[in-house]
């Protein structure tokens, strides 16, 4: 990937939770990049640090509770993620955020319209209202005007998710961080939302960092995929490479857990990801759940380039060929 094609880049981003004097690592050395007008997907089970990574990039983690280290660059400019005051220049301007649960993302005391107008002077109101109406209409909301005076508890999850996306796109960001945008939605609404995200990528040139635990969503949207487990990136590369030929047993496990149309029984992975603060030793964090675990897995695992542009943090698994025999 050429440097000038990259719009957002994190370098060794780490997040740890403060518990008294102790620091419990939650996200470890995440280095990832997002192409201009591209879509980078982060996938992993719940509790493996995806949302934390997102919030760390936005500088939204309370310094009282979390310690964040590492660097984030947006178009060659360093993003001051640990300086709350300077971050107000980035949040809602260059970086926008679509939260996980649209039901809870709106102030219950404010109408939809008030959310759009918040922080703007009275002179701009008409223009904003017109702009928001057009945007909502493009998103398939029939009567945008009727939503203007409604409260979040009066709308459905699908409507709210669309209003939320319209709200943050109205800020004209360069990068949209979408944290599980489809979890609260049914299949049909999910499809529609993904189409909306594709539109804003193609028509408005917005780059998307998409966090999801849904492989279908990732494989449809992303060009680059990062697989996270226990706060680490365990595999990354072009979508075709990672999902077509997973080189880490965890990715393989995720893909086999995906419900398909075959008559084969759904193969869920055994066990659960380690909890925050649960020691995984120095070795591979996935080893306790891994069917291919060997003695070498107890040693430290590094992210290595297996084939050009395709990285994996596993030293013994060599792709599907071995899986079939193993």
């Amino acid at each position, binding site marked *: 990937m050429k440097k000038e094609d990259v719009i957002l880049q994190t370098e060794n981003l780490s997040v740890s939770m403060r518990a008294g004097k102790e620091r419990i690592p939650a996200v470890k050395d995440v280095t990832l990049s997002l192409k201009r007008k591209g879509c980078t997907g982060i996938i992993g089970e719940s509790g493996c640090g995806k949302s934390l990574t997102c919030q760390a990039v936005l500088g939204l983690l309370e310094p009282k509770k979390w310690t964040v280290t590492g660097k984030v660059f947006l178009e060659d400019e360093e993003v001051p993620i640990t300086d709350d005051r300077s971050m*107000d220049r980035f949040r809602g301007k260059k970086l926008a955020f679509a*939260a996980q649960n649209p039901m809870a993302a709106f*102030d*219950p*005391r404010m109408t939809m319209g008030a959310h759009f107008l918040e922080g703007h002077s009275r002179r701009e109101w008409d223009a904003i209202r017109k702009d928001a109406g057009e945007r909502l209409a493009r998103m398939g909301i029939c009567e945008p005007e009727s939503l203007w005076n409604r409260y979040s508890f009066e709308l459905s999850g699908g409507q709210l998710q669309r209003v939320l996306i319209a709200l943050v796109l109205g800020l004209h960001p360069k990068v949209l961080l979408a944290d599980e945008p489809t979890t609260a939605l049914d299949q049909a609404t999910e499809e529609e939302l993904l189409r909306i995200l594709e539109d804003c990528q193609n028509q408005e040139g917005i780059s998307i960092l998409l966090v999801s635990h849904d492989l279908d969503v990732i494989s449809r949207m992303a060009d680059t995929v990062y697989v996270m487990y226990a706060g680490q990136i365990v595999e990354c590369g072009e979508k075709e490479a990672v999902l077509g030929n997973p080189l880490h047993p965890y990715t393989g496990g995720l893909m086999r857990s995906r419900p398909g149309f075959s008559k084969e029984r759904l193969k869920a992975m055994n066990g659960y990801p380690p909890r925050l603060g649960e020691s995984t030793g120095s070795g591979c964090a996935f080893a306790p759940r891994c069917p291919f675990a060997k003695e070498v897995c107890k040693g430290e695992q590094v992210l290595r380039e297996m084939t050009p542009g395709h990285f994996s943090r596993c030293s013994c698994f060599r792709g599907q060929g071995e899986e079939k025999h193993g």
Partner: protein
Amino acid sequence: MWNNFALRQIGRQLTGLLVLLFFVSVAAFVLVRLLPGDAATAYLNSINAPLTEEAIEEVEKELGLDAPLPVQYGKWMIQVFKGDLGFSYQTGRPVTEELSEDLRYTGALALTALGWVLVLSLILGTFSAGHSGGAVDMMIRIFTFLGSAMPKFWLGFLAVSLFSLRWKLLPVQGAATWKHLILPSLTLACSYIATYTKLLRNSILEVQSSPFVLHARSRGFSKRFVLVRHVIPNAMTPVFTTLGLHLGGILSGSVIVENVFAWPGLGRMCVDAVAARNYPMIQGYILLLSVIFVTANMLCDLACAAFHPRLRAGGRT
């Protein structure tokens, strides 16, 4: 939707008020007469007249206390509906006149106390939440603990001995100027400030961790802006709900404070009236307070609904 809701709500509360007033009037009437000692004896004592059977009978006849209880109650009720609460045994003036005079003083005291409660608990609660876990938070929490644990009469004496007697900053007692209002209202407000500071602190911390606050921050609004626009308004909801219940407490709590500071309000009047077995005054006081209590509750419910659209929808989710 909003008007409809408000009207329905007010209508329901007013009906409730009438029913409640009936029960309160019966209870007040009966309880007052259950007090040991009787009005005639107390009256004769107060004018230093000899306590002969004849004199007592004469006074009872004069005050209408010789009739059977239901008849007395009926006569009183008819008067009440005419807007007449009778005459005070002690002064001979109409009860309504006396009550409205005293109510002005108690009202001033209670409203000032309410003002202290709202302003100070908002400031302290916000501060405490903003520095949760820190030294400031700790100090405020110790204050709220002491404030809610200290009895009002003790706090009142303490305040007088420090601010009035030792430092001579404020008057000891009476109600001549606005300066006289400061100590009694603060004494009355103190335990409520403690309660509401704590309530607001926890409420703010809870609201602060909700996703819509995070999302507002992500749209580029500063911490302070989000605190003022989103966090505090949402955190005020439990304050309004409990305030309705506490208003009665603030009004009746003034009995002790008014006696400590010789404040010529309803509370002091009530204590005097009880001592003199001044039946019409006691009954009038109880009726008046119940009307105020219910009205205050109603106003609080409405304020709550005006503040929180979800409650306006009448439980619709």
